[in-house]
């Protein structure tokens, strides 16, 4: 209970009467002081009783019209209060404590004042959430005052609703192969885990993105149209996201960079993993090497941690040479030469393949993605599903990495942001751009042909359409199909 300035003035008056009565030897002043003190005590008792009753009769509710939102978007917040009392109640005000990350528009403030005869009131206002994360609206503060202005009392209600604020979307994203949009949802994957078995679920029409090994040839022959057999996993399988956030991933218009597109894809996989309770882990790699990693676990904290990591992922402005130096140093110590794929002779390629197959570890210079993945913990490298999100700026490194990943993981899905689709001057020379896209697609197909590896392109639908429009006969989509 808080006393007000009026209370202290009353107390001062009582004290003055007592002291005055003593000094002036005037008992009547003391009688008056005691009477006033008794009045004050009676008022306090009435206030305490009123607040105790009000706490039982008061219902305060806070709500948000959305539980998930993207940064910069608005969610309507409602604060409502009602008093279930037979007669009048003590006047009260309720003030919501909006999290600092939420911005309020000019307009109604998040508070309610209920007069002594008012039964219920509510206020709704839009909140704009600025920072990514999970937030809980704290309990509202109820302040009750007595009718005479002598006492106030504040208490807090139960916490309000929770909201998950996510990073803004980059808009429509093209995920597909050879210009054809992937019709399955990003993040949906075939159940081929090592643990648990598979059970046939249904036969459905083939859509681009389905693996050929799941085509049901008998059904296809019977129905004269490609059909696949769907399987349902009988056990969970571990998913690991390999997220590349090197300098080259910063290409593209602000807010629509390669990294932003790949982050959206990674977020979809994370969400899918959380829905199916698949163990989820991740590795993030920049120019210096591994920046963060988490082995796959199926815990709520792990999914949340992964989402935060995806959201926070950014292009490093500096390029530390630690990993490169280390890699080079290791290579020198072993006395070996590690040429890149581009400079390898057929003999070197063959020999290196044998060496890789034997399981010996090697560090390749200027290949942080490969080196980082190789240095990752065993649980990450041996995931059931490995999702690599990167670009095509270093095809040989990506080829090596996918090869390495394939040796350990059950299935590898590669999402590649083609550099040509993120050039800002794409439209100046469409012919050249189309040729570059063809080269990229050839590379993607090479990866796709590796057993248990599926490679997709990721980019803006408009840019991909613009690229395809640069084909000589403008019939590339049919050709590529």
């Amino acid at each position, binding site marked *: *209970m*808080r006393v*007000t*300035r*009026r*209370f202290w*003035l009353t107390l001062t*008056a*009582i*004290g*003055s*009467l*007592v*002291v*005055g*009565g*003593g*000094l*002036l*030897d*005037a*008992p*009547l*002043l*003391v*009688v*008056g*002081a*005691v*009477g*006033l*003190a*008794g*009045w*004050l*005590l*009676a*008022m*306090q*008792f*009435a206030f*305490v*009783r*009123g*607040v*105790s009753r009000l*706490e039982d009769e008061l219902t305060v509710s806070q709500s948000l019209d959305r539980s998930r939102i993207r940064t910069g978007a608005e969610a309507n917040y409602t604060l409502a209060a009602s008093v279930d009392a037979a*007669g*009048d*109640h003590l*006047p009260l005000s309720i003030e919501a404590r909006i999290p600092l990350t939420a911005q309020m528009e000019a307009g109604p403030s998040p508070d309610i004042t209920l007069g*002594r005869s008012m039964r219920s009131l509510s206020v709704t206002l839009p909140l704009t959430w600025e920072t990514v994360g999970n937030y809980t609206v704290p309990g509202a503060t109820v302040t009750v*005052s*007595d*009718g*005479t*202005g*002598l006492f*106030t009392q504040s*208490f807090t209600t139960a916490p309000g609703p929770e909201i998950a604020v996510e990073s803004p979307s980059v808009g429509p994203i093209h995920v597909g192969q050879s210009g054809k949009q992937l019709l399955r949802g990003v993040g949906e994957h075939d159940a081929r885990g090592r643990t648990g078995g598979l059970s046939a679920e249904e036969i459905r029409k083939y859509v681009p993105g389905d693996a050929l090994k799941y085509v049901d040839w008998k059904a296809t022959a019977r129905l004269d149209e490609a059909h696949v057999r769907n399987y349902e996993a009988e056990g969970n399988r571990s998913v690991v996201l390999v997220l590349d956030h090197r300098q080259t991933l910063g290409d593209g218009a602000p807010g629509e960079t390669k990294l932003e597109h790949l982050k959206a894809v990674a977020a979809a996989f994370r969400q899918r993993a959380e829905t199916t309770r698949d163990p989820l882990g991740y590795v993030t790699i920049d120019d210096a090497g591994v920046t963060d990693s988490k082995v796959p676990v199926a815990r709520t904290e792990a999914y949340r941690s992964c989402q935060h990591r995806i959201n926070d992922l950014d292009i490093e402005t500096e390029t530390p040479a630690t990993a490169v130096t280390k890699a080079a140093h290791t290579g020198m110590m072993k006395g070996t030469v590690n040429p890149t794929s581009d400079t390898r002779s057929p003999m070197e390629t063959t020999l290196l393949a044998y060496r890789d197959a034997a399981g010996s570890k090697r560090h390749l210079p200027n290949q942080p993605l490969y080196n980082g993945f190789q240095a990752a913990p065993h649980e990450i490298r041996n995931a059931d599903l490995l999702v690599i999100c990167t670009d095509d700026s270093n095809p040989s490194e990506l080829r090596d990495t996918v090869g390495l990943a394939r040796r350990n993981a059950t299935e590898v899905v590669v999402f590649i942001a083609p550099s040509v689709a993120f050039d800002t001057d794409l439209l100046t020379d469409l012919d050249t751009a189309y040729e570059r896209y063809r080269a990229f697609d050839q590379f993607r197909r090479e990866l796709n042909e590796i057993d248990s590896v599926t490679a997709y392109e990721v980019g803006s639908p408009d840019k991909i359409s613009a690229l395809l429009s640069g084909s000589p006969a403008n019939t590339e989509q049919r050709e590529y199909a």
Partner: protein
Amino acid sequence: MSVALETRVRSLRSPPTVLGLLGIIVATGGLVWGGPVWLGFVGVLLGGLYLSGTPVLAVVFGQIALITVDTPSLLPLVLVEGGLFLALLSVTIETPDSRVAGSLVALVVPLLGSLAWLSLWRWNLAPLRAGSALVIGLAIIGYLLHRYLLIELDIVTEDAASDRDFL
């Protein structure tokens, strides 16, 4: 808080105000009856204080005005004290739980006043000592009420040692 500072000017037509003004008039009548006529102007002051929302000050000044009367006889004394009591009682009627608050004031104020009267005139205690003892006793009860409310609202626990911030 602003609640404490805002002026509570009274409406002349509301029943509590009428009751309070009636008490002020009665108290003024008692003052004029037992003392000099100029105490009638004190009545105007008391009425102004009451109407401006400070009934406590009206009671305090009424009590001070009473001691200017050398030896008030019983009837003027009863009139003044009764009138000031009505002024205090009118304040309680304005609270939401007016029945409880009014009953409490009607019970506690005369009871404590009588106790003070007894201690001063019957038991011949020194006014300062008797007044201090009574006010301190009431303050302790007030503190206990404060603690009770905090526990009732789950703001503190019954273990006072762990809630020193609220002591």
